[in-house]
């Protein structure tokens, strides 16, 4: 299956698409060689060749595709594969590095902070939002199986909610948790999580590109 050439439009379309993460990852990884060629075409590999904006968008998207498929060590490898100059100069890639550090060290507050408050380029927004909710969901599941009782402030901090409000017993926040089936005991001021189970997903084989492209095509048209 031929992919359309690597372009900003194509990337924007991918970012906005609702492709399953594994397919998104697969497509983007096929573009990596093209991106490399662009860099190389500029002559010497250190100077950022090609279109820095396009490359930045590509690498940022690809980075998020790693995170969405839970490949944190490989995401780190990616940051080392990208052209040095670009990595040092491009604000979006710098943000990626900050995010990577927070994810790596499981600093939940830091992750939300980075995702929400750093200036991400417009076309990347869908992926940033997508990762935020991905991260939130994963954390919610993890907290639900790791805690039998938890103070609302701590739970809120894990999910990037306002933990000060939660500490004061903010009903809307408590509500969010009780919506997941957790119970709230007002006398002890504790939330009692109910473990959330997800069927474990088998690793998707890297097929399905055809479907993905078809889906993209239908969206584009």
């Amino acid at each position: 299956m031929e992919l359309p050439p690597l372009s900003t439009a194509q990337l924007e379309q991918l970012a906005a698409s609702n492709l399953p993460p594994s397919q998104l990852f697969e497509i983007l990884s096929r573009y990596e060689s093209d991106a490399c060629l662009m860099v190389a075409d500029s002559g010497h590999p250190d100077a950022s060749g090609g279109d820095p904006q396009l490359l930045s968008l590509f690498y940022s998207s690809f980075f998020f595709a790693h995170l969405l498929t839970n490949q944190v060590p490989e995401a780190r490898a990616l940051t080392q594969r990208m052209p040095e100059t670009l990595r040092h100069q491009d604000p979006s890639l710098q943000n990626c590095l900050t995010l990577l550090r927070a994810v790596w060290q499981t600093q939940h507050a830091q992750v939300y902070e980075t995702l929400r408050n750093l200036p991400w380029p417009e076309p990347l927004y869908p992926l940033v939002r997508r990762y935020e909710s991905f991260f939130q969901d994963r954390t919610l599941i993890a907290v639900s199986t790791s805690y039998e009782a938890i103070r609302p402030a701590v739970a809120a901090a894990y999910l990037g909610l306002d933990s000060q409000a939660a500490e004061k017993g903010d009903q809307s926040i408590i509500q969010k948790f009780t919506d997941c089936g957790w119970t709230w005991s007002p006398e002890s001021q504790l939330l009692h999580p109910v473990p959330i189970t997800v069927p474990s997903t088998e690793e998707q084989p890297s097929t399905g590109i055809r479907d993905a492209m078809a889906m993209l095509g239908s969206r584009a048209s």
Partner: protein
Amino acid sequence: MAAIPALVTASTKLHNTTGLTDESHDCQIRDHVAYCRNLLSTKALSSISRDESVLDPHDRTLIQDGILSSISFFSVCKSKPSRKRPMEHCLGIYYPRGRLWSKAVRYLETFNPVQIRYAGQEFRQLIEYPLLATRPIREAILRLDPSCAVFTSTHLLFVQLCLRAKAYACALPVLDKHVCHFPAPSSRASSKSSLALCAKHESGLSFITDSSALSATLTYKDYLLYFLYGGMIYMALKEWRKAFHFLGVVISMPTVGSISMVMVEAYKKWVLVGLLANGKLSSPPNNTPSHLVKLYQSIAKPYVSLAQAFERGEMQTLVAEVDAARDIWIMDRNMGLVSQVVNTFSAHALVRLRKTFAALTVAEVLEQVPHLPADPIATESVIAPLIMSGAMNATLVHSPSHTSDTMLRLSGKPFFSQVSHESHMQVRFRKEGQLMTALMGSLEETNRAMALSDEFVDASSKGQAWTTASEVNQGVGDDFGLDMDEDIMGG
């Protein structure tokens, strides 16, 4: 200029294979290979390669038509890139810019895996040309032999490239399949089975042979390095168990007397990875001769004493060992691993708590596991990620009042999460089961090869000649300085 149309004509002849027996197809392909080789070795080739444009109108025929004439394609492009590109530019991620690049890539993703069996030499020249990047080579390896059970020089090249390009995950589809064989001396393959090369083969072993030239001549260093590099790739991805296995392969391989430096390097990493994977100094694979174990231990003494300090559970001794041999870790390029070992020390102590306690407060955890942050809240933030990542089977229970302590219950997960645990287990079972089936297949192959004892002896004496011939192949050693990226982000 006449060469191109001639090639096209020749290749179209091959398109129509339906109704042919394997034998006649076999002959046809062999003729074609001979024809192409002959054609292209003459001056025709030089005229082609000088004129790049010539290829463009024709490569559609050559490449995109349903059935491909592999040899033709390889023959055409094999001489192309060498003049243009120095090696280091082409390696790894520095993809070539030549126009043939994308065609070669497409080709590798689509070539006819049957016909390629006849053109091993050209095939290998193409993919082992450093111009190609990791991913296409991977596709090529898997296309050639989906079981991936026969080791070829391409395997080594591939992991080397992945390591150098820091494209670790890319190597997994190949690494995760277990290499179990080496290309057989061709005489045995042909005497054993009368199957034509293009027939349906059960295993790659019967067509990837010595004479197929699908692999360069191999030496012991090739497979040792393959498993060492593979282990390093797993290490970079923090797949400690698999890394441990790969390094275990290296240190347990049969030797005649002495050991290779590759094995010593692997042993050092094996000790450290063993600590990360199992939290203890493990015993080497069963069939490692005990004198080798002693030899390793004496050569890699600092590593062994580091592991012993880790096992004894004394942080001070551990830190002292790390400081004492700092130069050695740096020289061996294992500093990153060593610092990860130090970092997991507390985690292992925490996981071990389960053996003694069913429940205790975080403050009591502090008493049992020294070297945690002194205040219980900070300690909780060390414990929570361990639980959430699944490394520790436990739950935390906050207490109503803020002042009193959080309880750590180690009595297993509540019932609800069992369901996801079950399905998770099922996936892992299935995976191991598949692996086992693959291994059983390989075992059958090995049995078949060994069963005919005369031939085994025959093959073994062939093997001698083979290794003696391999003296030349020393080049691999130059790459030994390869290093996975191992400095870590702290945490």
